[in-house]
């Protein structure tokens, strides 16, 4: 009898081991499947955009990229205006946001008294949490009137007659337009760039910083000669991350861009961006070609922002591995 008892016990233990192994395998595949799903999602987005934009690609070919005319009634579509608008508003946003973010990061890491550091840092980061539609709403109701009545007339009067850059500031003060959109975008990406910049500034070893101060360098010299060179790659990465945001941002821009498919020389003129065109027109687009042209715009945006983000990640990754 004793032998069978051992047999039974052993069998039970083996069964349990098998069950645990099965559970282990099941959990592994569940986790694997979830991770694979994330990868599949990116591929799925890319393929779906490609597939949906095929009619437009086969109709217009490459010239789609540089043709400006956008005429749904005549089934003629060109992406030049939205592409220009996307790049231009992002450029304006970067020109404003990058120095400001560096200034804030410098303040937070080098100048700010210790007890104020956390509250101010938190406040700036809360700015990042506010959804983009709020920025759009604020830009539309608060910033645009200020631009129309004060800033743009001032720009027109001051710079409008200058020989080289005058054309950038011509036309009528509409309030909305490229410059206003760029401004709202700059406010939006400011916290992103600031928090990355602050984080990489803090990776500078204290020893290095203190030695520099010890040699009698001023704060600005420490930032300019020690901190910026040390964190160069990370800084560029942070800037690119902000650029990625700016390129793809929809709602903040849609409110204040004016949605006009024309490339105007003046920064004060209304324009459009890729995301604003899609947001404004996709739901009402009738006809396969119209929809397809809008999806192709999306594809272009995806490729641009993918490149920028991939570059940003790569650069940030290289600083972290020091």
């Amino acid at each position, binding site marked *: 009898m004793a032998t069978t008892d051992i047999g039974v016990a052993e069998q039970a233990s083996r069964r349990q081991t098998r069950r645990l192994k099965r559970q282990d395998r099941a959990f*592994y595949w569940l*986790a694997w499947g979830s991770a694979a799903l994330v990868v599949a999602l990116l591929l799925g987005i890319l393929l779906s955009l490609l597939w949906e934009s095929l009619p437009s690609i086969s109709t217009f070919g490459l010239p789609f990229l540089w043709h400006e005319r956008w005429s749904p009634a005549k089934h003629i579509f060109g992406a030049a205006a939205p592409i220009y608008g996307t790049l231009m508003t992002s450029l304006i946003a970067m020109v404003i946001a990058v120095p400001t973010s560096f200034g804030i990061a410098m303040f937070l890491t080098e*100048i700010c008294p210790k007890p104020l550091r956390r509250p101010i840092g938190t406040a700036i980061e*809360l700015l990042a949490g506010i959804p983009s539609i709020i920025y759009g709403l604020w830009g*539309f109701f608060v910033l645009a009137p200020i631009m129309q009545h004060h800033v743009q007339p001032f720009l027109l009067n001051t710079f409008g007659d200058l020989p080289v850059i005058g054309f950038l500031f011509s036309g009528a003060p509409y309030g909305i337009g490229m410059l206003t959109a760029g401004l709202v975008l700059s406010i939006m990406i400011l916290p992103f760039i600031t928090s990355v910049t602050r984080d990489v500034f803090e990776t500078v070893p204290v020893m290095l910083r203190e030695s520099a101060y010890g040699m009698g360098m001023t704060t600005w*010299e420490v930032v300019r000669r020690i901190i910026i060179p040390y964190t160069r790659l990370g800084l560029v990465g942070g800037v690119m991350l902000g650029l990625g945001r700016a390129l793809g941002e929809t709602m903040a821009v849609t409110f204040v861009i004016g949605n006009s498919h024309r490339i105007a020389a003046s920064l004060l003129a209304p324009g459009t961006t890729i995301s604003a065109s899609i947001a404004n027109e996709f739901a009402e687009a009738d006809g396969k070609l119209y929809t397809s042209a809008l999806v192709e715009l999306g594809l272009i945006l995806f490729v641009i922002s993918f490149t920028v983000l991939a570059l940003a990640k790569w650069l940030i990754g290289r600083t972290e591995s020091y």
Partner: protein
Amino acid sequence: MTAHNPITRRRYRRNRIAMVFSIIATGMGLLILAAILGELLWQGVGGLNMKVFTEVTPPPGADGGLSNAIYGSIMLTLVGIAIAAPIGLLAGTYLSEYARGSKIGEAAKFINDVLLSAPSIIVGLFINAILVVPFGTFSAWSGAVALAVIALPVINRTTQDMLALVPNTLREAAAALGAPRWKVLVFIVWRAAKSGILTGMLLAVARISGETAPLLFTSFGNQFWSTNMSQPMANLPVVIYQFAMSPYSEWQRLAWVGALLITAAILFLNILARTLAARSR
């Protein structure tokens, strides 16, 4: 202390300019935050009343509330997070625990990071193509899935980061006691990283509850009270967008009220997540 050496004087002057610039930059950042929040409070609180919570969105020119949009936003966010949370948690666990150091794992992490900051309007286009066009109608389901696609990489990433903080000795101790791998992960590693993972999920909720672009062509909007997930459903962001751009002052008032509600909810979630993260440390 005054320096007479001209070079030193120039250095100090430059330093002062940089300091002043840096302080002005910070001041401007804070000023804008205050301006936005102030305007929201000013315009939003003025329009706030009980009707906002009890009546549905009005036709042009009439009086009404936002109850259907509030309900819709809560539903879309909850369903979205319910879809994204388990998948994100498991995916993060795989990438952080099983695929540590492997080439494919690194590539998957990279793809997730790209997805994390992909333009949200593209997610809207994608979900529109796979869940709206085939069924022939905008639906709350598609909106929730679109939000899930936005939340998934956020949860995935925070899970990876949080699991990486769990000391290896814990895993080894549990494994030495004979616990199978999945039990080590679920009962030891997840539990150790619980508050961090929860913080990530709260941040994901905060992120998706204000998203507008992915909902424009998925959940769309609905003027009436609807609880049917297979039909278009009103939601705060899209209502804010439509009402703000309209010429009707009543609609514009409701847009500000909606904006105030969303911002208040998101700031609350952010602060909650922060306190949670601070406590766990």
